[in-house]
């Protein structure tokens, strides 16, 4: 396909879509009798609902079904796939790594984002300072992984190092390290860094906005009472922005749960660095174990639920106050 043909196909697709939905809306708006309003509502809502039903709900139900079936989907195996995930040593490592990600990334990204938001608040050049931390959000996980892989690049001691981290180690008199080959789970930390690096900007943005929204009279009152620095932060800032902190923690937590690109690009899940989302991909597409792949996908979904529930409960509490 030539470039022209590709763009041609693109415009045809957009045109076709617009035409189809335009006609549906126009036809519906012609309806005149008492049912008119209902027909119009249907024309407005049903296309989107159809997409969701066919593309999301039906596939999700099928996946749940597949998760109770064998590797080639030929027979019913009950909860065997789930038991495999919980009991097989390789997969236990995957679960352990996922827990490490889920704990470290939200905490570290939120802490750094919050610290930075407080540090640069009202400072000269605040907008620029924020952009620096913010920018990784525009970069793909693949791009970020390559950036960090280069930081970790390893050459044996004695050769010129081209990776920044090993250069620093060597300059300080240590041996150069191949960080991905460090004993598991320590090597996972070097992957976790990438996600923290990406997510801190998100945390900073939300928390900075929350800090700026604290009513100034509260701050003035606290200041008159003699609160400054750390005390002000612990007694006034942190309680005031608590709902935002929870939103940030849970949002990053959910994103981290599904992290796939980073692991795949950096190690491919080798050296015991795999996580659930990566293992889902491997089982589904490389080992063709549809049953186990489906069970891992369902597991991702199950793990999201408590995080969301916690988020909703905390926000309700905050609202009630």
């Amino acid at each position, binding site marked *: 396909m030539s470039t022209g043909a590709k763009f041609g196909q693109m415009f045809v697709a957009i045109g076709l*879509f617009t035409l189809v939905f335009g006609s549906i809306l126009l036809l519906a*708006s012609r309806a005149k009798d008492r049912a008119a309003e209902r027909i119009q509502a249907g024309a407005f809502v049903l296309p989107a609902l159809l997409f969701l039903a066919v593309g*999301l709900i039906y596939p999700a139900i099928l996946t749940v079904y597949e998760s109770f079936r064998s590797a080639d989907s030929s027979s019913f195996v009950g909860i065997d796939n789930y038991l495999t995930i919980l009991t097989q040593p390789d997969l236990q490592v995957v679960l352990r790594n996922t827990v490490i990600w889920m704990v470290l990334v939200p905490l570290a990204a939120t802490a750094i984002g919050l610290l930075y938001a407080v540090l640069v608040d009202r400072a000269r050049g605040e907008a620029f300072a924020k952009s620096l931390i913010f920018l990784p959000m525009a970069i793909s996980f693949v791009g970020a992984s390559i950036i960090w892989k280069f930081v970790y690049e390893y050459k044996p001691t004695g050769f010129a190092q081209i990776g920044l981290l090993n250069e620093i180690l060597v300059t300080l008199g240590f041996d150069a390290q191949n960080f991905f080959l460090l004993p598991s789970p320590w090597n996972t930390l070097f992957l976790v860094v990438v996600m923290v690096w990406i997510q801190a900007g998100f945390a900073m943005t939300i928390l900075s906005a929350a800090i700026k929204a604290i009513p100034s009279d509260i701050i003035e009152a606290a200041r008159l009472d003699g609160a400054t620095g750390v005390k002000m932060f612990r007694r006034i800032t942190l309680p005031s922005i608590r709902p935002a902190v929870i939103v940030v923690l849970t949002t990053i937590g959910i994103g981290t749960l599904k992290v796939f690109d980073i692991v795949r690009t950096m190690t491919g899940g080798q050296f015991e660095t795999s996580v659930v989302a990566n293992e889902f991909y491997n089982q589904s597409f490389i080992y063709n174990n549809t049953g186990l792949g489906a069970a891992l996908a369902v597991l991702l979904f199950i793990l999201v639920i408590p995080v969301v529930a916690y988020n909703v409960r905390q926000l309700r509490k905050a609202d009630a106050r």
Partner: protein
Amino acid sequence: MTATAPILIETPIRDPLNRRPRAASLAKTSLTSPWASLAALVIATLWTLPTLGLLITSFRPQLAIQRSGWWNVFNDPDLTLDNYREILGGDSSLAEYFVNSVVITIPSVVLPILLASIAAYAFAWMKFRGRDTLFVAVFTLQIVPLQVALIPLLKLYVNQLHLSGTYWSVWLSHTIFALPLAIFLLHNFMKQIPIELIDAARVDGAGHVRILFKVLLPLITPALAAFGIFQFLWVWNDLLVSLTFVGGTPEVAPLTVRVAELAGSRGSAWYLLSAGAFLSMVVPLIVFLALQRYFVRGLLAGGLKG
């Protein structure tokens, strides 16, 4: 960008980049402390240096990259465009993948906006039975990880629709996965429009279609822009969806798929990887920097998807 579920911020929050002078400020004193300045500087350095290193590397000759660290460029500035020539026109050209990324991304942003604004309008301003229940259902779908839908959807494309390995499979998938968040966000913005405006249009004889396209959409352009940027970054930077549906079709596969493949197969070819990575980043970075305001507004209104 970020893979995540949507969030809902209920605290009153203002645009952090839109700084208005206020009477009191929490940390007015913070940067006057040298330690605070130092801490901010350390974080800022950690957050920029890795990118800068790879950027500089992408302009160094192949041999120099292997022989010395990028920081040596300050003693020995030997820069070249060869790496970019290689990835734009050489044997390992990424130009076609770049085109694919553009062709994949534009409809994947336009189509969900179109579909979602129509649905969001109905949820916000039309009366029909089961409306609120349906809206909650759509809203809840945001928490479904797309992994759960991938394989059955792929089978659907292969067996029933015969779309596997085509742009259509990626366009449709991104549209579907975007809908819950898009409908939710646009609904919230549409709901904020004063009812008097809608009523006035109705009195003038405007039907739903006219009200949506002539009154509402122009008013919520910032929201459309905010969602558009999210979706743009999400689709352009996506690996999983493209890998699943067109990963085996170089003719259609986007940059992320190819660059990730290079990182696996030619992991030490840094002259290719560095330039390739930046080729894949340049468009989102431009869009992001140009439209940062809208992005932040969208973020604060509760959108971060995945």
